[in-house]
């Protein structure tokens, strides 16, 4: 008997042990079928997250798993577990400001932008007044979000049919007072990304192209140099959408076109001027032009001293009649006078005006508003050509969400290119005062509008926030190759963005929109099914065995007791 029992036990144990791998496999299978098959998936772009000297700014969180709510919610409702969906068309800046300043808790914020602000969207420039209104609103919103410390995730998305349908549904539900929570169904928005991490040692890359002039025989002195500089990187509320067509895509395009024109002139020794030309595409523009400063410091001292003057290009894509030259040396300085006269004469010929604006540099203030100030701090004469009349604040006018392709006017850029090229040529070849047009239309040196347009379109689809550009980013390689085509020597300088700015990654994600049923619905369904099965059971028992059997099912215990007694 004992032996039998033991063998049975052993048998049982063996059976159990052999079941373990099967059970484990089943558990793994169960766990692996992780589902994310939402009805709708939308691309969303996160608000930037950065620190300045340790002070946090922007949205500090990235993952999202809450129900959707719209602006029609009841006042006083608790939104800390909801995502508020704000279409730009119905945005109330005051409301957002209140929410942020009073530090009210919110599960998340999803801002829906009209399709016209999408980077690849070229058409639709005609409904301008409505778009202008949106642009202003967007600029205000961006300023608010970029300079605030927001303890919930903020995402931007573009309106499409799915989001419109969802928003209409959510509004309807909210208006009825049924706010979406776990028990009342509705829409659930899920973005599953890991927590954002600091970008360790972000790099800024400066690209310079050197076009040497012709040295007369027997002339041992260093030739003077003229520099044309533009910063190519951007900064905006949504780094994955910061294409900065005007600030500073227009500057980059103009620089490339000027380089192309002068490379044609300089390729022929007979037309090569007695000036060297230095073209520089600098990075780190929004961060007090840190890249420009590092680039200047890395230049050979003699080369720096040979720079006659530098022209910095900043936002020259959307002006009509007047361009501004910003200087930091006083206007009655001889060099400044000469530069300004040269520019204004050419401008007159071309049919518009240039004005001179002077802003003194405050050495104690670390804020560098214009690129030429970095040159002036190192005693190089420089000026910035721009359509902006007031110096931009920190992180302003650096390629915001509203700065899309439609804001830029190709003709304005072409006029700017002509201005810079003719003025430089007049200075280089000594034609001041003479009425000679070198880069006339219909000549072989005409400004090429197709070139301008194609580069502008490319830049308007490429977000260029410096910490997110790797050292060998395709854009940097493309700019380098372009300068290599037009200049003799190109060098690329990688620096790390030190100083006070720290950035965090996770700029783009996919939003899954689920339509969920509430718990009450599931319970109701369970109730209905339970009663259906009970009815089915009783029906079958009655029809096959008779009603007596059904009643006897419930009366069995007493009859057993009777039997035992």
């Amino acid at each position, binding site marked *: 008997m004992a032996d039998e029992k033991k063998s049975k036990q052993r048998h049982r144990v063996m059976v159990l042990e052999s079941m373990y791998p099967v059970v484990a496999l089943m558990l793994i299978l169960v766990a692996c079928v992780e589902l994310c098959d939402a009805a709708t998936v939308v691309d969303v772009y996160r608000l930037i997250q950065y620190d300045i000297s340790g002070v946090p700014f922007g949205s500090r969180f990235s993952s999202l798993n809450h129900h959707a709510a719209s602006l029609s919610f009841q006042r006083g409702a608790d939104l800390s577990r909801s995502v508020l969906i704000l279409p730009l068309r119905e945005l109330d800046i005051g409301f957002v400001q209140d929410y942020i300043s009073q530090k009210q808790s919110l599960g998340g914020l999803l801002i829906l932008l009209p399709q016209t602000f999408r980077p690849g969207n070229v058409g639709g420039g005609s409904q301008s007044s409505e778009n202008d209104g949106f642009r202003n609103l967007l600029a205000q919103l961006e300023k608010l979000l970029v300079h605030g410390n927001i303890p919930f995730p903020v995402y931007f998305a573009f309106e499409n049919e799915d989001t419109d349908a969802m928003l209409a549904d959510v509004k309807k539900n909210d208006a009825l007072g049924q706010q979406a929570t776990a028990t009342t*169904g509705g829409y659930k928005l899920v973005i599953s990304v890991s927590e954002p991490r600091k970008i360790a040692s972000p790099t800024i890359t400066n690209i310079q192209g050197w076009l040497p002039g012709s040295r007369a025989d027997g002339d041992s002195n260093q030739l003077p140099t003229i520099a044309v500089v533009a910063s190519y990187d951007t900064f905006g509320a949504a780094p994955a959408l910061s294409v900065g067509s005007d600030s500073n895509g227009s500057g980059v395009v103009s620089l490339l076109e000027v380089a192309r024109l002068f490379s044609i002139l300089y390729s022929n020794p007979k037309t090569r001027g007695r000036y060297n030309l230095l073209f520089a595409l600098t990075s780190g523009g929004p961060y007090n032009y840190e890249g420009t400063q590092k680039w200047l410091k890395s230049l050979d001292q003699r080369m720096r001293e040979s720079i006659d003057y530098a022209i910095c290009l900043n936002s020259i894509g959307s002006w009509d009649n007047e361009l501004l030259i910003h200087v930091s040396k006083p206007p009655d300085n001889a060099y400044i006078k000469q530069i300004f006269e040269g520019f204004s004469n050419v401008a007159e010929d071309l049919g518009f005006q240039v004005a001179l604006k002077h802003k003194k540099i405050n050495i104690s203030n670390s804020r560098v508003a214009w690129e030429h100030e970095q040159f002036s701090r190192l005693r190089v004469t420089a000026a910035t050509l721009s359509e902006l009349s007031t110096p931009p604040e920190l992180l302003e006018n650096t390629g915001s969400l509203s700065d899309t392709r439609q804001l830029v006017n190709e003709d304005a850029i072409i006029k700017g290119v002509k201005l810079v090229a003719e003025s430089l040529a007049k200075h280089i070849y000594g034609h001041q005062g003479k009425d000679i047009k070198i880069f006339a239309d219909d000549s072989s040196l005409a400004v090429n509008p197709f070139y301008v347009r194609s580069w502008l379109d490319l830049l308007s689809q490429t977000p260029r926030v410096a910490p997110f550009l790797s050292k060998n980013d395709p854009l940097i390689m493309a700019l380098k190759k372009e300068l290599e085509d037009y200049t003799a020597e190109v060098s690329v300088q990688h620096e790390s963005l030190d100083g006070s700015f720290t950035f965090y990654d996770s700029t783009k994600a996919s939003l899954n929109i689920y339509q969920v049923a509430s718990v009450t619905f*599931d319970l109701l369904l369970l109730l209905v099914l339970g009663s259906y099965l009970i009815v089915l059971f009783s029906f079958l028992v009655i029809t096959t065995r008779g009603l007596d059997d059904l009643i006897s099912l419930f009366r069995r215990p007493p009859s057993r007791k009777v039997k035992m007694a």
Partner: protein
Amino acid sequence: MTLFHFFNCAILTFGPHAVYYSATPLSEYDTLGTSVKAAVVYLATALVKLVCLATFLQVSETEVFDPYQEALKAMIGFIDVAGLYYALAQLTHRNISQNHKFQAVGLGWAFADSVLHRLAPLWVGARGLEFTWDYVLQGLEANANLVFTISLAALGSLMWLRKNKPKSLIPIIYTCAVIIATMPSITSYLKRVMGWHFPKIVGFELVTSLVMAFISCQLFILCQRPSL
């Protein structure tokens, strides 16, 4: 609460089979073995059908109703009937009355059909966050299928196991059996040509199943009278 929804749909899909087994005298006579054998026969039939479909059918890209393809599918569907015949007539069962035999076979057949066709989509789909009515409708379809299969088994047992049938009823029996056997083709015709959506089709199936069940029940009773 998505596992909850999965649970709900599972009891809708598979509950009626269990209820049928326990409510009717099938459980008293312990006909589980018959049902299991019928399920195994269904498995084999499904395999054969699969091979035939793969060999003879062309997969069309669009949802166009091609009469030849549908006729071919219907013919292959008759393999189902052959399988049912084998399960009813050829397999040896313990001594159970004809009445219970067809019910047990039909139950086992329908249960295997539900598990094979509906368990995997249910497991994968109903547990997601997204809510759709699809799985509830699928459960209702499983119910309709159960009724259809039992009716078909009843008619099958009438056709093959009962020797003395009133002559007048034979054509009706065969017509009903043909209608039930070609139900898949009918539903696919409705879906593609008439453009009916899933809820409508499921409703149609439920109604038809009840009608067919009623008719086959009446036929069964009518055929039972002479032997009484």
